[in-house]
């Protein structure tokens, strides 16, 4: 962690769905310029932890803090305004794109800069995208391409680009590569590494141990909504991480 860096912490987060305790006192911390991976089997609480952190779910107890200052629970709007963005899993509505529309239109969907009478500020949109690309040194498909004609990996880059437009310092990603092929995964992995290099802190929820070993700095293993282990990826083998999960 470098001086003047940015941190996001979750403290003793719990969330119950009926009889099911999805999160049971989960605690984590991520700082700028690092990739924290969340691993665990289906139902271990990975997605719930991300959504509770972001605010699309309200925790029953516990708190989320940005640089030590608590966020209002259940408010994605406030979370975004404090520099934390999320890229949702493909099956979530929040992740969906409009296939018939251009990349630039999808990037700004619902948040277009307009004049007082509602005319679109197209040049400003292009400038904002260009500045975002320069700032994060990431790749975005051609702005005029129809999103429905892009590969899965490119569509994911658009979803990530959408999250980056507000210049977040921390990015939460829920299974960003789950539905992608090997080549497309590498597109997303490269984007994430570029983001880390530009100082963004990332929480990555993943099923793939190989992916975690390849790009993460630290890994947290979840089971039944509890953090059961945490360690640095550097120096660990895939087997070590698998052992963490089965502890």
């Amino acid at each position, binding site marked *: 962690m470098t001086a003047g860096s940015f941190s996001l912490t979750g403290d003793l987060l719990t969330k119950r769905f009926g009889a099911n305790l999805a999160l049971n006192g989960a605690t984590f911390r991520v700082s700028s310029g690092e990739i924290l991976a969340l691993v665990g089997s289906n139902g271990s609480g990975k997605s719930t932890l991300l959504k509770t952190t972001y605010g699309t779910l309200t925790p029953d107890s516990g708190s989320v803090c940005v640089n030590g200052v608590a966020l209002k629970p259940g408010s994605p709007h406030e979370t975004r305004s404090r520099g934390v963005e999320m890229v949702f899993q493909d099956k979530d*509505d*929040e*992740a*969906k*794109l*409009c*296939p*018939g*529309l*251009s990349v*630039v*239109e*999808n990037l700004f*969907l*619902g*948040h*277009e800069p*307009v004049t007082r009478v*509602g*005319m*679109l500020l*197209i*040049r400003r*949109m*292009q400038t904002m*995208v*260009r500045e975002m*690309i320069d700032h994060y*040194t*990431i*790749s*975005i*498909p*051609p*702005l*005029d391409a*129809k999103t429905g004609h892009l590969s899965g990996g490119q569509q994911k880059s658009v979803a990530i680009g959408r999250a980056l437009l507000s210049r977040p310092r921390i990015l939460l990603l829920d299974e960003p590569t789950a539905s992608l092929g090997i080549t497309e995964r590498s597109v997303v992995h*490269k984007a994430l590494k*570029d983001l880390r290099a530009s100082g963004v802190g990332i929480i990555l929820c993943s099923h793939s141990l190989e992916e975690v070993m390849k790009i993460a700095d630290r890994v947290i293993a979840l089971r039944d909504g509890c953090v059961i282990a945490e360690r640095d990826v550097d120096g660990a083998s895939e087997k070590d991480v698998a052992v963490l999960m089965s502890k």
Partner: protein
Amino acid sequence: MTTSVEPKGHSGAARSVRSLSGRMRWSVVLLILYLAVIFAIQPAFFLPSNLSALVYYTCLLMPAVLGVHVLIVLGLFDLSVGATAAMAGVIAANAMVHGLPIGIGVFLAIGAAVAFGALNWLLVVQLRISALIATFITLGVAEALSLAITEGQAIAGLPTSFGRIAVGSTLTSPAIVLGVGSVCALEVLTQRHVLFRRLYQVGSNPAAARSGGINVKGVQLFGFALASGGAAVTGILQSSRTLSASPFVFTDLALQCIAACVIGGASLSGGTGRAAGAFFGMLMVVISRNLVVMAGVSVYWQDLGVSLVLLAAVLLRGAEDDGGTLMPYQAQSRKGKL
């Protein structure tokens, strides 16, 4: 480090216009081919009086066509536009024969039609009844209202000043100015104005639009209101043209409008189509019907001409979508294709 591959010198809007025009290109190609064939077999078609009458009638229908076009872009449609147009004509005429000023009659007619649009929205969006059933229900209600008001008779003897709205078939006729003007306005607004872009965003993927914070139901209400309001304007223009109103006009207007939009490049699955395409599409429909009359064939064959043009347009569009190779069988297998 990687960079954007955004091409230099083209604004996003300009390029999106170009890509959209790809879809519409076929309707223009089809129109030109069609005119060439007509020239070969029926040169009298090109008499200025016939051409101006065709353009005039197309313009008179444009408000209704554009309303349906907006709904199709949203992935919806409305079978009741014909009945709404007839009802609007009847309401306006009825108000005038009862001594109300023309402006009040027009206002009441458009207001009643917009209320029908809101009713369609309530049934389709709020109560989740399929658009086919819901708008068939309102079609019945609008027809019944028209018949009840007129007791099945045409209303004649409207003030001659009312006839000025749709008078003449010259380029300066208010009907032509309104028709062409609304196409141009919608062309610009759907490219540049955020509310009209919302039509495409919601039509392309309502879930994505909703999660982007867009008021999807509000946009759909706007669409239904425009469709019914547009139909009312066409109904009023028709009444102005004939200085009468009948509950029996526009019985097949809805299907003609839908055909026009599809010929013009729209897809019933939503998210695509342009106002200019809908204009060319309606021109093709009007020409096809006119041609049957010009050729001296029984008018009972009129709809066959429209059907053949519709078939040609859908097959050619399949070619456009599949990268320009004529493979219509693929078009049929694609999701969302007609």
